Every structure is written in structure tokens, then in C-alpha cells.
């Protein structure tokens, strides 16, 4: 009988292992460092930039007051493309930019704020520096991108056990 807590721990280890094995850029980083970066990415996704407000906690996408946010579980974008989207947002949509200097020059898609006019992406909840953007992308590819529907255990990994948040996913 494997307890839920143990299963959650196993899942975390599996995530770290997957990242270690799968990401070329991670070759030189220790598992502890990779875990730290992913934890930082999660904090950005969950709280600092509050990506989950629109994309939902499991990055499966959502609608309504978060805008029509795409599923990152189903995305075909590469890590570099996701990083660019986080940095520059998506003009004409509700996806914010997170580089504080985006559109002050032509670093994003070769256009400035003046060029975009009303298609300017929204201001973010919080600006992110390049390390933070790297962390949130690593987090997404470690836990969400390319995965099927989220599970109860995924939910507990995200929210912890001290909440009723995952109750409805319990089988």
C-alpha cells in the first residue's frame, strides 16, 4: 500500500528525473539545482506572475475572466517559443508581456508599443527577468507540456494537502 504522500514524493522525483534526462541545457546542473529552478518556476506560475489565473493551475487553459487562455498541456510550442511568448506576450490577445522593456524597442517581434496601438498586450501582474522566464518555462515542460489530463496527484503536488482544492478530483 503506497500512501498518497509517498506517491506525491515519487511523482516529484519522477519529474526531476525526467527533466535531468530530457533537457540538454540541464546537463551541467545538479538535480538539486534543477529542482530549485523548477520550484522557482512553480512559484512564478502560481503566485508571482499568476499565470494560473488564466491558464488554470494545471496549465490546461481556461476562459472567462482570464481570457481565452490556451492549453499548455496541449501546446506544440518549443521551450524557446514559450519563453518568447512569456517575454513578449501575444499582441491582440490577453496574454501579457513580462519583459519590462518589451515594446520600448523592437526586441519583441520587431515592433514597438506605438506600432501595436490597441493590439498592445496587457501589462503583467509582475515583470520577470530572464532567469525567471527560464524557470517558469522549465517548470511547464517538467510538469505540464505534453501531458494528458491532470490527476488528483498532480493537483496535490500543485496545491498541497492542507486544502480541499483537490477533493473533487479524488476517485
Amino acid at each position: 500500500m503506497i500512501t498518497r504522500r509517498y506517491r506525491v514524493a515519487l511523482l516529484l522525483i519522477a519529474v526531476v528525473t525526467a527533466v535531468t534526462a530530457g533537457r540538454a541545457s540541464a546537463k551541467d546542473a545538479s538535480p538539486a539545482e534543477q529542482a530549485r529552478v523548477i520550484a522557482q518556476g512553480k512559484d512564478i506560475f502560481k503566485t508571482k506572475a499568476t499565470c494560473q489565473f488564466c491558464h488554470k493551475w494545471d496549465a490546461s487553459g481556461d476562459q472567462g475572466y482570464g481570457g481565452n487562455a490556451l492549453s499548455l498541456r496541449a501546446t506544440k510550442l518549443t521551450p524557446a517559443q514559450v519563453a518568447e511568448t512569456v517575454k513578449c506576450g501575444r499582441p491582440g490577445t490577453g496574454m501579457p508581456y513580462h519583459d519590462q522593456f518589451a515594446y520600448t524597442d523592437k526586441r519583441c517581434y520587431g515592433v514597438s508599443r506605438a506600432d501595436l496601438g490597441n493590439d498592445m498586450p496587457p501589462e503583467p501582474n509582475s515583470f520577470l527577468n530572464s532567469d525567471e522566464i527560464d524557470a517558469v518555462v522549465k517548470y511547464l515542460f517538467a510538469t505540464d507540456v505534453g501531458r494528458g489530463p491532470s490527476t488528483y496527484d498532480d493537483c496535490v503536488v500543485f496545491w498541497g494537502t492542507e486544502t480541499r482544492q483537490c477533493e473533487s478530483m479524488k476517485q
Partner: protein
Amino acid sequence: MRRLLSAALLIAPFLAASALTPVHAADMNFDRGLNAGKEPQNWLLYYGNYQGFRFSALDQINGDSVKNLKPVFSVALGGLQSGGRYAFGNLEGTPIVEDGMMYVTDGWGSVYAIDVSSGTRGLVKWKFDPGIDRAWAGDVACCGVNNRGVALWKDKIISIALDGRMFELNKATGEKVWERKIADPALGETITMAPLVIRDLAIVGPAGGEFGIRGFVDATDLNTGQQAWRTYTIPAPGEPGSDTWKDGENRWQHGGAPVWETATYDAESDTIYQGIGNAGADWDPQYRPGDNKWAASVLAMNPTNGKIKWGFQYTPNDPYDFDEISEHPVIDTKINGKDRKIVVHAARNGFFYALDRTSGTFVGGKQYVDKLNWTTGLDPETGLPANYDPKADVQVYSPGTHGMRGNPMATVCPSHFGAKNWEPTAYNPNLNLIYVPSVEGCDGLETVEEKSFTDQGGPLKPRDRFSGGSFKLTGRLYGSLKALDPTNGETKASVKLDFPNYAGALATAGNLVFLGEADGTFAAYDAKTLNKVWTYNVGTGINAPAVSYSVNGKQYVAVLAGSRQSPFVMQNDPQLKYTSTSSMLFVFGLN
């Protein structure tokens, strides 16, 4: 002599206690509530009075003296924790002030009892934290972590929390007497509104119009902590109005019509006027053919048993998310020389309405927002949108102003945030002017065909978002403050604001109107001209309405400051992008 000595010994502790105790609050009762205007030193009720005026009869701070208005103290509050989809809680609350004690809430429902009797500092005497499961409740709050305040009852404080509970607290100590679960986040229900206490009943309702709830108005018997009545805002089959849900698939069960702002009350007819929110799914009106009563409406209700006396629907089959939850002031006035008893409403849909408050019939209405494109006006007889089609199951209104399946993109003015959202108006009865703080501008809507909930054969689970689409900004939103004649909605004065307003107004007998803004500006305007006569910047966004009170003969103005700067406010206002959230009470007085 001995008897006298005994008596003196007996009363000595009480004398000592009263010498040390700065406040002598009487119990709150219904009569005090009805006569709140006779205690201008206090702010006893959410709107200052039951009629919904947000008017202080104090006039020490006036056009001549306001130049000497300065911050006299501030108090740092809490509630900044993250939870669910939110990085922190907001401050949208209205302080309640009674005999030198102030009761305020933060977004996570903590209540602070603050001794403001010295006039030089606010001393927090107790704090009650309801201990919300923040992830669970915050994940189904559509638009922020909010709590708009408490109510007084006898020697108790009545408060609510986002997770749907109501609390009775000991006013002197903050100890909990009882709690009652009213709304359930497991169903997407939350509570953000200040309770309305009528006699011994506390009346609230749930938010959740974006989560497929079925709204209700609920009364708690404060003597027992048990439910006294509950009236659903969407009629069940067989009840009057149920024929306005024509889908044939029981979509009324998830039809929204939430309740998240406090009702007003007319004592003469013993009637509450409760604003009702949007139909769900918000932007997919084809999901719910029919007028969808009583979404986007006002209900006149008996506060003792919850029976509906009449209803008036502002935007039938609402495809815009035009919640009409906000206040409905109760005004006695003359129209064409005749005495009229009216209830008025600055609606989210951009029109100002005056209704006969006995019959619910339309008296008059007028566009008050700068730009309005979704209809061509109001029918002068019925008050319905001029292009409302009584034969249509799904209203088109002005083509291109809301999405439809197969033609999803649209632009609506005022924006779906409303001409006026929850932030309350203020009414100066001496001048017979009502002050409307607004969001001006347009935004884009996009319809996405909504799916059904699992109990109706679809994939959506309880707590899933249920909006039938989304919105996006198409240009800069700005704000305005307008002074209207409440009998006909005619604009008598107006001032353009740099930012859309999400704070709400305070009117005073000093003929001033106070209003906070997203950039931290807290300003006073001349009540006749709306010229700005005083301003102070608190350094963090204001999303709450001010109150006024006095202690020891000196008038103060108090406001809560500190809120999430909505990305939708900032999108075209980049000057706000580095502002930080705080959680503060600011109190101003004359130097």
C-alpha cells in the same frame, strides 16, 4: 453612612472601567438603524443609511475648510496572502464606525476592531481571522479576493468570509459566537458582500455568476445562527418567471443571477431592493434562450420572509455580463410636481433608471455613460432596451455589440466591466444630486459555445469556469464622476478621470464628494460643480469607498487603500505598472 460606602465601593470598579474605556458603544438595534441619520458622528450601516445614500450629515469639512484636510493617521492591515488564483487579497470594504470604534475587513475576511477615538492613531483592539482555505475559496472567486464589510447587531459584529460562512462575533472581544455555512465553494459559490441586517435577520447572497451557480438571497436569524429563509433568484419550474428559461434543458439550474452587493431598504413599505447579477454563461446567450429572469434585474422583497414583491429586469437575455448587483437608493422626490417614491439605479448597462418603488414600473431613465452602443435607448413606457424584441428567444440588440455562435467577435460600449460596476454611488439629499463613479470606454467580447455541466450531460465539473467566452480590451478605459438628477438621470455636472473608477463615492453635507482612484489619488470635489477642491495621494491604488464620522466633535474621512491593479486597468495605462499593492486604512482630518 455604611450603606453609602457600600454603594460607592460597588460602583467604583465601573467608574474606573469607564474612565479607562474610551468608547461607550450602545447596542445596535433596528431603531438606531432606521434613524442612522440622527447619529452623524457614526457610520452605522454599509451605505450610511438603509436607503443607500452614502451621505454624511457632517459639514465641518466643507468647501472652505477642506484645504486644511490632512492625513492624521493610518493603520497597516493584513490580508495580502495569496490563495487560489490570486497573488493577494484586495481591500474593497466600507468601514463601520460606532462611537469611536471602527470595524473593517480585509479581502480574506479578517475583521479588525480599531479604536479611533484619540483622533491621532488607530489602535487595533482585536482581530478575528476566519481561517479560510484560501486555495479552495480563492480558486472560484471570479474577480479578486474581496470582502466589503461587516454589520452591527446588538452587541455583536456580523461578518462573512469568501468561503461562504457568516460569523457572529462579540463586539468587545472579537470572539466568535457562532458561524453558519451559507454558500459553498464546492459549487462555485463565494460571499463577498457586507450583510444587511433588518431587525434580527442578516441578508446576504453568493457570487459565482461565472461558475454556474444558481443565485439566491438568504437570511440568517441572528438569534439562532440558523437560516430564516432563502429565495432563489432564478425561479424553479412553475414559479413566476420560469418560462423565461426556454432551453428545455434545465439550464436555469446553473443560470447564475448571483448576489454580491448589499441591498437597500425602505422601512415604510418594509421592502428590500436587491440587485441581481448576470446570467450564465455570460457571453453565450444562445446557451440560455429566453429573458433569463431574474438575472440582470432588481428584486423588491419582503425582508421577513423573502417573498418577491416585484422584479424589474434591465437587460433581458443579457449577452454582455451586465450584472446589476449594485445599490438601488431609495428616494422620495417630486416629479412633475407630484410626490413620488422611487428607487433608482446607475446600471452597469450604462443607463440610469428611476422606478416606482411600490409597483416596480418604469418612471424614467437616461444614458449616463459617455459612449453606449448596445441599444438605441430605452422604451419610454416599459424601460426595456429600445431594440428588445419580445418575440425573440435570443436578443440581438445592436448587431455586433455581442458575440454569437458563428460570429463570435464584438465590441460593446460601455465595456462589459460596466458603466458602473459594484462601486457605489452617493446621494446628497440637500442638493438632490446622485454622484455616479464610472468606467468609460468600450471593450471586445468573444463568444465561445459553452459546454454543459456533468449533471446535465456535459464535461464541466462544479467549480469550472462557465463564461461562454471572454473579453479583451480594445482601447484605453478611463473614468468619470457625474452628478445626476435622480428623477430623470440628467447629468448636471461631470468630471473626467484618468482611470476607470472601481472605488465608489461619498457625499457629505459639507457639499463635497470624495472619491479614490487607481493611482492612489484620494480627492474631494465640489458637490455642485465637481471641481476638484482637494487631493492627496496615498501611494497605492484605492478600490474602496470612503466614509465620514466624528469623534469628540471633530470630523474625519476614512478610506481603505490597497488592491490588485487589474491588468485590464493597466493595459493602456503603463504609468501604473510599477505600483505595488498595500493594505492600509487612511484617516484624514482638519489641521
